[in-house]
């Protein structure tokens, strides 16, 4: 027991008295959190806070570690609104439980209080607190041992926005709707930013003929940009504002002018006109060749007839004379 810091040390004489008072005061809040009787007691520092935030929900999270774990164990927790948190770490070791050094840390800063219990060969430690603002979000770790550390980390984050990664492509003069949606969460507020170089600049909502922000439900927001021009292209961010922080999503907007596909269209149309011209010209050419060859054939035929005719005339003459000779 000497190894455990905290209340067991210098404040030992006051402990029994304090414990009795606290047990009496804390019993209601323990009852609504845990039906089974917990061996732990609530610390004196948080008595008022527990009473103030007793209407908040209680979230309980667990990590198990052994002395042979090679990698640190992490648990990611998504938190949207203020809650009471109870973190429990259990450590299994074959050695002496009393000699294990236990600390709780937030982002490498050692936290004051911790409570633990040893049952058999398992060491339980618990840390209870309340998260009400964004400063209290972050990573909370329970660390076992000094030389060879076994660490379990709870990471608290606000809900993330998941969106499509494809850029939105639109043309000059169109209007476009940028959408941001949060899956199972309900932010308090949404804000939109556009990019000016590398700086995020809020979107000027006063220009009603250019920007309109509305959203059908609490978990989505839409930014409608009308009369797109080339200057509107670039990055846009939507921020979801929670009580415990902000998360953002990035949307890329590309604005093209009509000339871009139009040039491709005209090029292909010109190619089609060329193809048609080639096909029709080829056909006219082959037809002319056929006509010339037909003319050539007719010419040969006429020549042949002429030769036959002249042969006939030559032959007729002697026959004619023969007939005349016979007739006399």
């Amino acid at each position, binding site marked *: 027991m000497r190894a455990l810091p905290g209340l067991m040390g210098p404040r030992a004489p006051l402990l029994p008295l304090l414990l009795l008072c606290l047990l009496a005061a804390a019993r209601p809040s323990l009852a609504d959190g845990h039906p089974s009787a917990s061996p732990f007691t609530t610390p004196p520092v948080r008595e008022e806070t527990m009473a103030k935030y007793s209407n908040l929900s209680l979230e309980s999270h667990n990590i198990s570690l052994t002395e042979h774990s090679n990698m640190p164990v992490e648990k990611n927790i998504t938190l949207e609104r203020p809650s009471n948190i109870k973190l429990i770490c259990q450590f299994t070791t074959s050695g002496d439980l009393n000699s294990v050094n236990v600390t709780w840390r937030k982002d490498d800063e050692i936290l004051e209080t911790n409570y633990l219990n040893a049952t058999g060969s398992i060491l339980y430690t618990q840390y209870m607190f309340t998260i009400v603002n964004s400063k209290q979000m972050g990573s909370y770790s329970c660390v076992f041992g000094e030389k060879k550390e076994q660490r379990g980390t709870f990471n608290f984050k606000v809900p993330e926005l998941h969106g499509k990664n494809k850029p939105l492509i639109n043309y000059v003069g169109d209007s476009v709707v940028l959408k941001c949606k949060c899956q199972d969460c309900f932010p308090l507020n949404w804000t939109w930013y556009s990019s000016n170089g590398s700086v995020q600049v809020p979107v000027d909502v006063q220009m009603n003929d250019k920007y309109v922000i509305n959203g059908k439900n609490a978990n989505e927001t839409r930014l409608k940009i009308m009369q797109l021009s080339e200057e509107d292209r670039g990055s846009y961010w939507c921020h979801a504002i929670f009580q415990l922080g902000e998360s953002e999503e990035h949307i890329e907007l590309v604005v093209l002018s009509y000339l871009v596909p139009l040039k491709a269209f005209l090029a*292909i149309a010109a190619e089609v006109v060329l193809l048609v011209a080639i096909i029709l010209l080829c056909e006219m050419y082959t037809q002319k060749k056929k006509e010339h060859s037909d003319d050539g054939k007719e010419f040969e035929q006429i020549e042949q007839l002429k030769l036959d005719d002249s042969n006939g005339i030559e032959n007729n003459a002697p026959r004619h004379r023969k007939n005349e000779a016979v007739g006399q």
Partner: protein
Amino acid sequence: MAHKAEPPDGGWGWMVVLSAFFQSALVFGVLRSFGVFFVEFVAAFEEQAARVSWIASIGIAVQQFGSPVGSALSTKFGPRPVVMAGGILAALGMLLASFATSLTHLYLSIGLLSGSGWALTFTPTLACLSRYFSRRRSLATGLALTGVGLSSFAFAPLFQWLLSYYAWRGALLLVSALSLHLVACGALLRPLSLAEDPAVGGPGTQLTSLLHHGPFLRYTVALTLINTGYFIPYVHLVAHLQDLDWDPLPAAFLLSVVAISDLVGRVASGWLGDAVPGPVARLLMLWTTLTGVILALFPVALAPTALVALAVAYGFTSGALTPVAFSVLPELVGTGKIYCGLGLVQMVESIGGLLGAPLSGYLRDVTGNYTASFVVSGAFLLAGSGVLITLPHFFCFSAPTSKPQDLVTETLGTKVPLPSEGLGEE
């Protein structure tokens, strides 16, 4: 231009095959890949998916019901000017759609305008193809129709890339430029005058004579029945796989395999249709019966290997029946009336297509799984193949395909002795 006695079966015909390949890619490939745009439209216009999908439905309906108009015009003016005008209309529809500010604009521009453009292109091109080929008709049609499958592979990623780079307005503008290539394809369709053209007369005469032609009407009924069952598995295969607890990735992979076997089936059936003597209608009946049987077996197959085998077989047989379905028509009505004939067939069979998918969905809602809808679609296909048996010359094993001169005499109703060949079969 001198009238040719017979279809050339090659030569410039292969350029027509190329043109038909690109046209089926640009019409049906665009339609099938349009689903990529739907997500963007839903977000941009803040409408429900059901209302946005009406765009494609209107486009398909206008394309199919407008087929007779395209056919009649191409009988009068030849396929080339009609297809080029159709290409300009289709591109104009997409161009106007890129400026749309509401969903109604899209219904009118893509649905009505582009749809009528597509109506003026697809049917005249296939009919022109049938006029250019007689011995290798099925192979040529099969090769041309592979354009649909290949373009579905290529256009879906292309449209995604266009959307990510230009957003939907710019992407529609570029799809319009893509559709302009229909005009170039139309320029390839050199007019061909066949011997029977003067005998069959103008579009009005042709339409009336077709409506009194018994075999043609029976064939139309058969195709309508086939069409009712044909599209159902494409729409419901994925959902059926999900009902059987397949993961999305193997299911998508199976669909790709089905698409590949569909392509192979088209080309193989095209080659087979020309190689096997006799009326092509018998091959159509074979493929249709096989497809119907496979569909009816689908609910029974529960093991993954059996399902994969059935799906591949379905892809092959359903792909196989498409080129043969187009080749039967010229044998029935002759290459002179092919434009009007094809237009009428497309218009009537579209009723089957429009009824098939909602019927199947209704059956699924009522019974809770896809067993009934698969069996019913198989039954429709078997009924269609049954009607095919009633076509003329079905059971003649020695009869070759009808020659154009014989069909001219049949149409005119007189026996004119032709110098070149005797009238072999009557």
